[in-house]
């Protein structure tokens, strides 16, 4: 008797969470290295009577869109973009973390760091230091950092067996959890460029319209169910309107 209302409610609950997800994607429309997420909905079957089941909806997971974002030219020598697969490794107080956001700067000691001040790591797992009085820094496509003082180190790029299982942290960082980072054979680092967010505004807007309309449809259904029950009670109780 109550199931239609609950089914509509299950739809509304997941739509609210999807709305949060869409809002986050759109808020990060210009965040370098950001990767859009979408929600994976599944049927959740519950038997009501023998040989009869009703299907609720459940949000099983958020799925990250792993396509590369558009490259934009910035002209900043320490803006690095990864063409193809891979992540930069950075050292944080909580341990090694990985990122696609390649907007680096120098710290007072000349180390190449992220905007939050976490050092970018080289192949040996140590920070890369640029001497204070050296000239322009160049980063080759294979990740070799050099200046007029010679080679300064090679940027570490890593891949993962299952990129979806990386946990997202604030600031464009990923936590590998239990996965071991794998060294990358194919590496192509572009200097002076930044990988933008791979969120397509138009797609998110259409999803947004869809979410609002579905929410309204579910609300409408809940309302009609409420009316139906009231009419049933009125009719069965024999009350004259």
């Amino acid at each position, binding site marked *: 008797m109550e199931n239609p209302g609950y089914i509509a409610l299950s739809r509304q609950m997941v739509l609210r969470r999807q709305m949060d*997800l869409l809002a986050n994607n*759109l808020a990060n429309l*210009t*965040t370098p290295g950001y990767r859009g997420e979408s929600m994976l909905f599944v049927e959740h079957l519950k038997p009501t009577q023998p040989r009869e089941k009703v299907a609720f909806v459940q949000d*099983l997971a958020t799925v990250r869109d792993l396509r590369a974002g558009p490259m934009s030219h910035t002209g900043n020598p320490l803006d690095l973009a990864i063409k193809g697969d891979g992540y930069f490794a950075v050292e944080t107080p909580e341990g090694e973390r990985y990122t696609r956001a390649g*907007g680096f700067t120098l710290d007072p000691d000349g180390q190449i760091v992220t905007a939050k001040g976490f050092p970018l790591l080289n192949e040996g797992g140590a920070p890369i230091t640029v001497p204070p*009085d050296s*000239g322009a820094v160049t980063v080759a496509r294979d990740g070799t950092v050099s200046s007029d003082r010679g080679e300064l180190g090679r940027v570490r790029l890593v891949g993962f067996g299952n990129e979806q299982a990386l946990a997202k942290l604030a600031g464009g960082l990923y936590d590998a959890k239990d996965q071991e980072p794998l060294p990358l054979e194919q590496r192509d680092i572009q200097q002076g460029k930044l990988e933008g967010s791979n969120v397509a505004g138009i797609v998110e807007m259409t999803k947004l319209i869809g979410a609002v309309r579905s929410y309204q449809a579910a*609300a409408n259904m809940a309302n009609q169910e409420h009316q139906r029950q009231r009419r049933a009670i009125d009719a069965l109780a024999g009350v004259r309107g």
Partner: protein
Amino acid sequence: MKSLDIAATGMLAQQLNVEVISNNIANMNTTGYKRQRAEFQDLLYQEQRRVGSASSEAGTIVPAGIQLGLGVQPAAVYRIAEQGAMTITDNTYDLAINGKGFFTVELPSGETGYTRSGAFQLSADGDLVTPEGYLVQPGVTIPSDTIHVTINANGQVFAAIDGQVAPQQVGQIELATFANEAGLRAIGNNLLLETEASGSASVATPGADGFGSIEQGALEASNVNVVAEITNMITAQRAYEMNSKVIQASDEMMQSVTQLR
């Protein structure tokens, strides 16, 4: 609804973005101006269903959990130290730096300021000063009976004095560089100050290893690329609009709830 707050962070971020872009466009003709860029980062994530948690007794695990992000935040607004174009002015005391380095200026407060803008003039005493009248360091004084001044690529200042055959060296311009130029603090009037983040200044004559050289009679134009700024502004404006639509849509969803009865 969280989406309201999330969209608000998005709108605030784009507002900052437009502010940075408008400052770049306003300074497109400012000598020695370095364009700035706002960089953004995603905010914290809320875990609704943890990645890798067990989904059954048979040991199967959740391959991708539910992580809901809470919006965006500005991470940094930094200067891009790309060389600006050289504009020939043929003015004796217009100096441009070709390469790395800053002119050193003594501020009235006694602090040392750094600038890329080499539009210098002479004071009443013949000292080399900025348009605000601040002294260039180390001081250069041009004798009053000078007929011609030459400043070479290494910053040596030669004065041809009336009645003398050989030009006389009257000063030496020096340049300062920093480990992290982006860490300098801008105080307006094309001036920058040293900070904890920039590291301390290392001073040398122009043309030394890692230092730029001096061009007399030229000015370094701002490195703002107007076409890029305008396209960035269009992107920022559209992103702003899309975030405002999210607020509208969340509002509509809440409205349909209140209409339920």
